[in-house]
């Protein structure tokens, strides 16, 4: 039997086996898709303002400016930014912050309106829920923003006085000062849409992460068959060792490509993830599948039994995935981490896919493709040499 035909038969048998035991579906498509869905839903909510911060407010002042502040908070509540609860007293506020009912409670201290109007500076207190450090920060920012806008009136009067306004004019001036529009304002998130896309980020990260698990089925099959005793039997037939290795490699390759393709299509259609133009994505994907196969076969060469090969290559896949930035951005962090992450194929793959999703072309990711292929050649070559002893007759 020709080497190629034998290899093709082995590929088909392996694929049939994987389809039958359903593991290929789980790891190749269902698991990564499910995860990307969970993650982009929870993160997406934050980005699209679906989540609102629970805020309590206690008005101990009762004055005009305090009422204005509560009104501003009610506006934010109506916009869905916060979820406002008016509280009777400071004890209720403290209790609900402690119990986690709100992210933070705002206390407008007694004498606030008077202090602000007379220009002596009012006091606001934010009672934090210790489990919501971020929510607390947001509430404090709202309080500071309001404080700054009322202080502006005070500052305007003080400046007018410094420039020679008479004390008798102050009440009239105050009224007009409050009407002065601020020359500057901070506009939030108008470029958000093009700024950062969590769905694409996680679709890419998780697909690449799982790729290094998917190809294990093919590559580790060789060790498994040796342990099962099917390998010596196959080799006893007139089939060359090269055909066996080629068959296993072919099966891993097909599994990797099919699972990546399924994921790319599914995340684009179902989640709206951006992958970029098809041709460069396809080339990078082929390089990625080869690199994943290379890494797994290298690890498999180092260990002796199928069981340790599978648990060790899972560990390696997790370590490289984390380090390569499949879950957390490694670009924000110390230099050492950035450098270490470049020693993983994941980093080059992820960067490449992300470049493509930003609309860059094949030329822009040539370095990434070369780097990913280098992993395939070096690790895969070493793995191939080591796997030859497995099929030695």
């Amino acid at each position: 039997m020709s080497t190629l035909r034998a290899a093709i038969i082995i590929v088909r048998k392996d694929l049939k086996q994987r389809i039958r035991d359903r593991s290929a579906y789980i790891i190749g498509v269902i698991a990564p898709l499910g995860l990307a869905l969970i993650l982009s839903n929870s993160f997406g909510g934050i980005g699209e303002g679906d989540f609102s911060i629970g805020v309590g407010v206690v008005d101990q002042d009762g004055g005009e400016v305090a009422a204005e502040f509560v009104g501003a908070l009610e506006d934010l509540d109506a916009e869905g930014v916060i979820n406002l609860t008016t509280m009777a007293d400071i004890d209720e506020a403290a209790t609900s912050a402690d119990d986690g009912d709100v992210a933070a409670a705002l206390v407008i201290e007694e004498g606030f309106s008077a202090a602000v109007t007379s220009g002596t500076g009012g006091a606001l207190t934010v009672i934090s829920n210790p489990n919501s450090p971020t929510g607390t920060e947001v509430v404090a920012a709202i309080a500071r923003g309001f404080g700054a806008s009322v202080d502006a009136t005070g500052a305007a009067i003080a400046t007018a006085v410094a420039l020679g306004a008479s004390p008798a004019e102050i009440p009239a001036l105050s009224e007009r000062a409050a009407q002065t529009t601020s020359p500057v304002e901070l506009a939030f998130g108008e470029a958000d849409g093009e700024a950062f896309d969590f769905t694409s980020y996680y679709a890419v990260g998780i697909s690449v992460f799982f790729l290094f698990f998917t190809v294990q089925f093919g590559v580790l099959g060789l060790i498994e068959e040796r342990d099962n005793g099917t390998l010596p039997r196959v080799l006893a037939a007139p089939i060359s060792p090269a055909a066996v290795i080629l068959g296993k490699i072919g099966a891993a390759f097909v599994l990797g490509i099919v699972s990546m393709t399924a994921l790319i299509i599914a995340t684009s259609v179902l989640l709206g993830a951006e992958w970029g133009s098809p041709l460069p994505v396809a080339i990078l994907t082929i390089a990625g599948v080869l690199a994943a196969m290379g890494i797994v076969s290298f690890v498999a060469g180092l260990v002796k039994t199928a069981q340790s090969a599978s648990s060790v290559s899972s560990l390696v896949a997790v370590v490289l995935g984390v380090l390569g930035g499949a879950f957390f951005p490694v670009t924000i962090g110390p230099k050492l981490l950035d450098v270490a992450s470049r020693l993983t194929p994941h980093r080059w793959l992820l960067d490449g896919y992300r470049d493509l999703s930003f609309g860059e072309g094949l030329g822009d990711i040539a370095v990434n493709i070369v780097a990913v292929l280098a992993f395939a050649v070096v690790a895969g070559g070493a793995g191939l040499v080591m796997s030859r002893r497995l099929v030695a007759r």
Partner: protein
Amino acid sequence: MRKIIAIALIDLRRLFRERVNFFFFLALPLVLILVLGSLVADTKPRLGVVGGSDSAQGSELRSDLLAIEGASVEAFDTSADLLEALRRDELNAGVIIPDDYDEQIETGGTARIEYVSVPDTGGIQVQGLVSEVISARSRELTAARFVADEGFASLADGLAAAERTASAAPQTTVEIVGPDFGKPEAAGGRGFLAAQELVLFTFLTGLTAATALIQTRQLGIAHRVLSTPTSIGEFLAGVTLGRFLVAASQGLFIIIASALLFGAGFGNWPAAIAIVLLFSVVGTGAAMVMGSVFSNDAQAGATGVFIGLGFAAMGGCMVPLEFFSPTMSKIAHFTPHAWANDAFAELIQRGGGLGDITTELAVLALYGAGLLAISTALMSRVLRTR
């Protein structure tokens, strides 16, 4: 008990008979320490600033923003560059000073300074810092505009006067206190991030124990052991114990090393260790259930990674629980991860001790015991049908 220990030791011996396993089981925690360390290390959120360099007012705002101490601030040439860096996650946030900044101020309009951010904790942190700078500028510019409108001075002179007086004028204070009205525990934020990752990986590595159980079944060790006067419960406890020791020592190694190397605080030590130990039991217990359900390690591995990461995401290891809606939070608490995260939050963010997390620890212990009981039931069915 001696039987359990003997079974555990045999499993460990089989695991580490391959020397290379030592390396891999040590390498994983080391990489995690590096990653966790960089999370807790003093990495300031990154802010990008663009615009304002070629106008008088704009460059003042620009230099105010560049001087923000709580963030590491970088200047960009074009807003396209800045957005690009933001998309690549090299920045947490960016501020774009508009081209008509000076013009708007001088002609009585309102200049819109754009703030763009990644919706994560870093982005929200920077938002507070940027707001403060803008508020201060707004206060002075409003005063200047007012005195100019009222005819006291020109805008430029008014601004100079406003800068002198505004710094002296009393300002509204915003004080953040804890629920007990004391100073809030400030150190927590980053340590808690590291704790979330620790929870994720302790469970994930615990799940690899499923392969061990499947292997003992495939090799026929399970049947041979059970033909002696050893109960299924004892047998499972033994296998669990062996892998528990591996997972727990990895977890402890991670918290101790990241504390020593990076000063990562996980709060009260005995309590943190208790969480790691109990959570390792839960992880290995889940592995035993999987090892009983699946008959080949490829399936177990696939499902393990999915469950490990899926539960982690649902349990608040990737997005903090504070961002979950009340309904999602209830769902989250079906996962042991949410309870472990709650326990760490109590230690790190509230400075609690062992006594404050008894509920969480009890829930984790229940999970561990429950999973072990389920796997015992499943295994006895599996073994009886053979």
